[in-house]
């Protein structure tokens, strides 16, 4: 069956699939039509109207994002009428937009600015109409600057339909239209999970992470401070994008060198802590199985997810593993174990994390995360903030030398690397749990069924003759499905991995702008390549982790572990 239609695009007769939009048809044939409200991973909105084109027989211009192609359609995308209209619409948006581009956080990667440049807009004739709204600084992680909002609705769309948290709304009407939490409340006054997906969705500088780079610079400058840094598993496959390099580059060595250039005293790896997490979490699962603890057990690595369950499903908190996230395990160990090994007093150690995540900022600041006697992690930076620090120092990422992580918290395994991808924690845990339970070597390390971008994945794994049913969910709308099935008693799983963001941490709210699902896929593939190429691919085989248990912790779930590496949760529902 031929599902193609014949259309004429700017005089070129072409054949395209019948179900696609004019925008998509143009894209496949060499024309990127302008767009602002359109996002490849979201529903079509057709709010901004900058993608309008002329279609023969239609009285008005039509939005190319929401108009499907039809057989015989004659489309023109660059007539004087289209050009004048599109330019005027952008001019109208700019008249209502603060002219602060040079000092804006999105300077350099603002989609509105890029569009204005692309259209050759040199003059804004429309009357400036910017109203001054106060900037919402109330959230501990995000800044909302309504003045820069162009009302495209992408943030609200991701908040409602990808995460189903739904705290951002478009309300009021006409020129008073405003996207913010309900009734104009501040971000801190609603149950935001700090996932930062709204930040990734925003085409301009209307919502962004709270920049903490100056705190890090100050610490580096301070001769009294021993500043160490940890890098989350997913940073090595995304940081290159901050320098315009393609997604899916594995740049571990360059990342280490870049951080050393910035002046960090030690470059450590969150992957080390991820291996520790598997030791603790795997044993917790085994213990729950043995002692009849609450099942299914839910993972706890993703702080946006923890914020979600604490605020929206507190009745299910007993299911959540008591393990801290790798970031926080690292922090607690840095100010105890590393302090002991290095002889540097904990009060002098300043822990910085490079995270793909805005919720990690919230997590680092939690009251519960002070088990070392100090704030375990002092500052959590996003990938974007690191990008900013590196660019400000003239870093040319592609020509950096290949560096090596430092001892004793720099060694890791392939199991830790894949923590950054949805399904990765599950796979890492299964590799260890299998071997611990059976005492046999696991022949095939890849658990294909828990990999990939499908929203909810499940698998049954045979361990020592008994089937263990597991599930993986990523993106909170999928987490919600799992939670509802647990609530209704239908979830007969033993272990469930949940990641707050689509694709897992590689798709986190702190990742480089332009994190589409296609890019997420590239980053995921890079992590699996990394895992495949590693010598050690099981957390319990990490020699540095073995040493940690031998010299310091004793055994998983032991007294020290319990104190430093485990936590508790509380009902924070509104």
């Amino acid at each position: 069956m031929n599902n193609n239609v014949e259309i004429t695009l700017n005089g070129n007769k072409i054949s395209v699939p019948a179900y696609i939009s004019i925008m998509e048809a143009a894209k496949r044939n060499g024309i990127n039509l302008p767009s602002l409200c359109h996002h490849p991973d979201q529903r079509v909105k057709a709010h901004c109207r900058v993608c309008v084109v002329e279609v023969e027989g239609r009285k008005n211009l039509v939005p190319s994002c929401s108009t499907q192609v039809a057989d015989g359609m004659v489309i023109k995308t660059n007539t004087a009428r289209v050009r004048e209209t599109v330019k005027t619409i952008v001019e109208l948006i700019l008249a209502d937009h603060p002219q602060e581009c040079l000092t804006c956080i999105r300077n350099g990667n603002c989609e509105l600015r890029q569009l204005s440049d692309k259209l050759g807009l040199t003059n804004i004739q429309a009357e400036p109409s910017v109203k001054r709204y106060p900037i919402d600084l109330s959230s501990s992680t995000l800044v909302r600057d309504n003045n820069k909002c162009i009302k495209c609705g992408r943030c609200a769309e991701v908040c409602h339909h990808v995460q189903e948290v739904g705290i951002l709304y478009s309300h009021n009407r006409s020129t008073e239209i405003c996207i913010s939490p309900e009734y104009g409340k501040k971000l801190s006054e609603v149950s935001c999970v700090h996932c930062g997906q709204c930040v990734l969705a925003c085409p301009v500088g209307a919502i962004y992470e709270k920049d903490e780079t100056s705190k890090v610079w100050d610490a580096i400058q301070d001769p009294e401070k021993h500043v160490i840094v940890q890098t989350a598993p997913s940073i090595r496959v995304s940081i290159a994008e901050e320098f315009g390099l393609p997604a899916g580059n594995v740049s571990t060595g360059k990342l280490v060198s870049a951080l050393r250039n910035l002046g960090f005293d030690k470059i450590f790896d969150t992957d080390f802590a991820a291996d520790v997490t598997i030791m603790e979490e795997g044993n917790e699962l085994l213990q729950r199985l043995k002692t009849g603890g609450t099942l299914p057990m839910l993972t706890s690595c993703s702080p946006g997810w923890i914020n979600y369950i604490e605020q929206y499903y507190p009745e299910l908190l007993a299911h959540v593993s008591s393990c801290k996230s790798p970031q926080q395990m690292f922090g607690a160990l840095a100010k105890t174990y590393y302090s002991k090994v290095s002889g540097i007093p904990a009060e002098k150690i300043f822990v910085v994390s490079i995270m793909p995540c805005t919720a990690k900022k919230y997590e680092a600041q939690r009251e519960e995360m002070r088990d070392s006697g100090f704030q375990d992690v002092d500052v959590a930076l996003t990938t974007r903030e690191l990008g900013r620090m590196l660019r400000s120092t003239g870093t040319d990422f592609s020509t950096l030398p290949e560096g090596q992580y430092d001892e004793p918290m720099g060694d890791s395994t392939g199991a830790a690397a894949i923590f950054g991808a949805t399904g990765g924690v599950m796979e890492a845990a299964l590799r260890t749990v299998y071997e611990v339970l059976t005492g046999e070597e696991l022949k095939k390390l890849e658990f294909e069924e828990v990999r990939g971008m499908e929203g909810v994945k499940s698998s049954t794994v045979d361990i020592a003759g008994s089937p263990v049913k597991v599930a993986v969910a990523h993106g909170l709308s999928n987490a919600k499905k799992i939670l509802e099935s647990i609530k209704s008693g239908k979830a007969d799983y033993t272990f469930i991995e949940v990641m707050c963001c689509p694709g897992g941490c590689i798709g986190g709210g702190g990742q480089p702008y332009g994190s589409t699902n296609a890019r997420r896929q590239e980053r995921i593939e890079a992590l699996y390549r990394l895992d495949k190429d590693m010598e050690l691919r099981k957390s319990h085989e990490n020699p540095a982790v073995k040493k940690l248990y031998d010299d310091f912790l004793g055994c998983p779930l032991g007294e020290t572990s319990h104190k430093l590496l485990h936590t508790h949760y509380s009902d924070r529902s509104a």
Partner: protein
Amino acid sequence: MNNSAQNDKYVFNFNFDEYLDIETYKQRGGFSALESALKEEQDNVIKKIKQSGLKGRGGAAFPSGIKLEMVNRAEGAEKYIICNADEGEPGTFKDRFIMTHIPYQLLEGITIAAYAAGAEKGFLYIRHEYPKPRKRMEQAIKELEEAGYLGKNILGSNFSLELQIFSGAGSYLCGEETALLASIEGKKGRPQIKPPFPTQSGYKGFPTLIHNVETLTNIPKIIEKGPEWYTSLGTDDSHGTKLISLSGDVKNRGLYEVPFGTSFHEIIYEYGGGPLEGHTVKAVNIGGASGVLVPPDRLHVSLEYGTCAEEEITIGSGAVFVLDERRDILDNVHNRVRFFLHESCGKCTPCREGLRQANILLERFRNAEASYNDLEKLERYTRVMQDASFCGLGQAAGNSLKTSFHYYRDEYISKIRNEEPAEVIA
């Protein structure tokens, strides 16, 4: 309205001074259309309405029979009918009169249309500002339910219709069908992307027939007297009659039922008695706030869908507002721009920002502080608004602006600052 009580040339036949009760309505042939329709195949009813050539009277003039057929043919576990009584177009008061004076004819029309479409549930979406019509309709629905013309197994047939009244909350935009649907569903009253059209996926995703009050009120007469009778009214291009809400600077303001083919001149001078003593017509606004401004020398155009489309006159809801020489065109246009600026949902850029700019620029003209460049900008923003807005609100908001640039350009030029160099004009 002064039509004789049962004139065969009219569809509506209502008198201001008469309180029409259900018995009188029955004596005048009321419900005979419903009785006969329920005995017919749905397709036959649809066929008759298609043959009548009835078009939507809310403003868009979409062929009513085709819409009916689309809902009838659409797949859906349930189907809905919605009577759009969100009469928000400024200067329009026809639906109010229908609801207060001949509610039974409207309800009979709704029931026949619902039967033909296969809809067994429905809403009457009445604007918030119409408390009296709402009360009257509530009462009429109750009476009809008691008399067996509405509700379960109407007139002993297998057909049932559960009709509810839904009160709008004051937004003009909710007259737009997708915004209306959003509003009934409890969402923000903003327009939605089409397709899917409400005929395929309307209220809660079910196929939904949405018709204007006036459109539906035509239906009992079409069924009762036959499509041939209906097509004998009006012209070859446009069948039937149109309710005209005549207001402004004219002697006999009011509501008139006018056969298609009547010229606007006749509407104003014969039905309306012409301008007030000692005054002359300067402009006529046709089609409400979203309509156009027409100068006196173009009033010979007849009220017909085809002719008006050619002449770029918007029949719209049938509002005709007369402006005499004392009226300031810019004042009138600015008033409407302010209206639309207030009623815009704000989600699309051309409407929201175009109206914002038009408001600023018109203020400048009215203060005689404008430049030629301002006129160029105002025209450009108007074009963009009309050409690229998401829904009919923004697209139509430019109608009066556009016609004012064309017919009343001098009024703009006269407000341009004197110091402007003369050569700029060329």
